[in-house]
């Protein structure tokens, strides 16, 4: 089985978010970048398939040379090869179009992407790849088993879970639950050394228009101070929630 794991290079979850150039660009000063957490669950599941069932795992992203440490980390975790599409990830459609080309050229059976990246939160890429290559698609995937050409998955739905069956080629939008958080891997020294020898191929992007343009950013208005209520006066809290906030 050939697996492609789509990796997004995103600010660490604890990052403070700031913008520069008249609020038109993300300010990456002092920001540490990591593998998008939703992708990391998928990468770990791909490692499980590789180790238990035999699979070849390639990771891919769309981005400049600055994103290579993130791909190298994925290689250190155990991926066999990496592909960087040397383009600027302008929007979700542009990224999906580039990755769909990678999928078609590489003839992958299973494509794992995170349900969304934690930076732009577009939630577009996995579904758009599936739409572009006409593959089966499961979003919000929290469990995946593969048996030959057949797949059984569980996806999260509002208020519960749905078990579905499908067949390869398959694209999933994965998330927490696909593997346990405790199963996520930290690269060890051997993995880091081995990763240096693994192929990281850089390919040039397709010429394609983006469907949307990021114009500017703004941060939420600063909040007023919290109104503290004494634990001995909870009637006051109910009064505030009823009469002032009007939420109960």
């Amino acid at each position, binding site marked *: 089985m050939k697996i492609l794991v789509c990796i997004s290079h995103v600010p660490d979850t604890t990052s403070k978010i700031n913008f520069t150039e008249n609020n038109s660009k993300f300010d990456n000063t002092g920001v540490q970048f990591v593998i998008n957490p939703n992708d990391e669950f998928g990468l770990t599941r791909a490692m499980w398939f590789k180790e238990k069932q035999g699979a070849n795992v390639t990771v891919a992203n769309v981005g400049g040379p600055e994103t290579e440490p993130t791909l190298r980390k994925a290689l250190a975790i155990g991926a066999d090869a990496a592909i960087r599409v040397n383009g600027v990830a302008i929007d979700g459609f542009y990224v999906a179009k580039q990755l769909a080309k990678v999928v078609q050229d590489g003839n992958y059976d299973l494509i794992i992407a995170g349900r969304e990246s934690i930076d732009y939160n577009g939630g577009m890429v996995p579904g758009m790849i599936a739409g572009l290559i006409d593959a089966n698609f499961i979003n919000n995937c929290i469990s995946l088993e593969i048996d030959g050409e057949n797949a059984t998955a569980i996806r999260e739905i509002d208020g519960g879970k749905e078990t579905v069956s499908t067949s390869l080629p398959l694209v999933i939008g994965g998330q927490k639950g696909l593997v346990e958080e405790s199963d996520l891997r930290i690269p060890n020294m051997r993995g880091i050394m081995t990763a240096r020898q693994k192929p990281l191929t850089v390919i040039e992007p397709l010429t394609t228009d983006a469907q949307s343009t990021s114009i500017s950013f703004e941060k939420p208005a600063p909040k007023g101070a919290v*109104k503290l209520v004494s634990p001995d006066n909870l009637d006051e809290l109910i009064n505030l929630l009823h009469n002032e906030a009007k939420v109960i």
Partner: protein
Amino acid sequence: MSVLVYTESENGTLKKVAFEVASYAKAVANQLGTTVTAIAINTNSTSELEKYGVDKVLSITNSSLDTFNAKSYAAAVKEAADKENSKVVVISSSINSKYLAPLLSVGLNAGYASNVVEAPISTAPFKVKRTAFTNKAFEITQIETEIKLIGVSKNAFGLIEENGSGAVEDFSPSIPELGITSKSINKASNKVSIADAEIVVSGGRGLKGPENWGIIEELADVLGAATACSKPVSDLGWRPHSEHVGQTGKPVASNLYIAIGISGAIQHLAGINASKVKVVINTDPEAPFFKAADYGVVGDAFEVVPQLIEKLKAFKAQE
């Protein structure tokens, strides 16, 4: 040319979010000087949609659509958009709508903006405000394609009543081969889901163990709320992953979010930023959550919450 809105229903009944996206579609239609057409799938009655500005309803009755399937639903919405020559398609931000959106976007060659929080800033060029960085910021996005697909954030736009004629027309789109077969659906029938909840009651490590969750559930019961938890709680296995709220868990955009025994890590706060009113109950007055909250009680959850439950019961009995 009509603005098309996909209205979600459950067991034949329109969901509240259907009226919210209809309200949004009407606002866009007003800006464009056009009408609103809704698409309703296996919905018993669509008459209420006219209160939110819907002029026409394309009503689909098809047993193969009883269970949601992103591909078939996307195909149905695409065919409706083609038929109505819609240049703007409005959907919600439910899990299912976010599932069908990218397929629909590819099918319509429509630029998709998810998590949109306001009516368009302008329609030519078409600019919308959406949340990004898990609610730590907003992004102004310009959609460049002729057809625009807008995913409206829950509770962001609200319900706005405006008259529409609500005429119903039967519609029978062709449904493609699905590729995915639903085997079973496991849904807690008597529990409010986080996505649908107006109020969410959430517990953290301050609850000390899963055996103490009774007070969270009882408070949620009194308020008709959903229950949720912080990441450490789901990591410890005290509560299921599906209740984890935060950057890598579920985002919450409720009217009221009550955090009990949660200190307020940056990733948790990112997940609840879109909630309108936040209440925090914590023993530690230095907990970062107090900086993000509207109302706070510094106190022991095991003393405060049972009292709050009793007082809320009395308040509800009076109302």
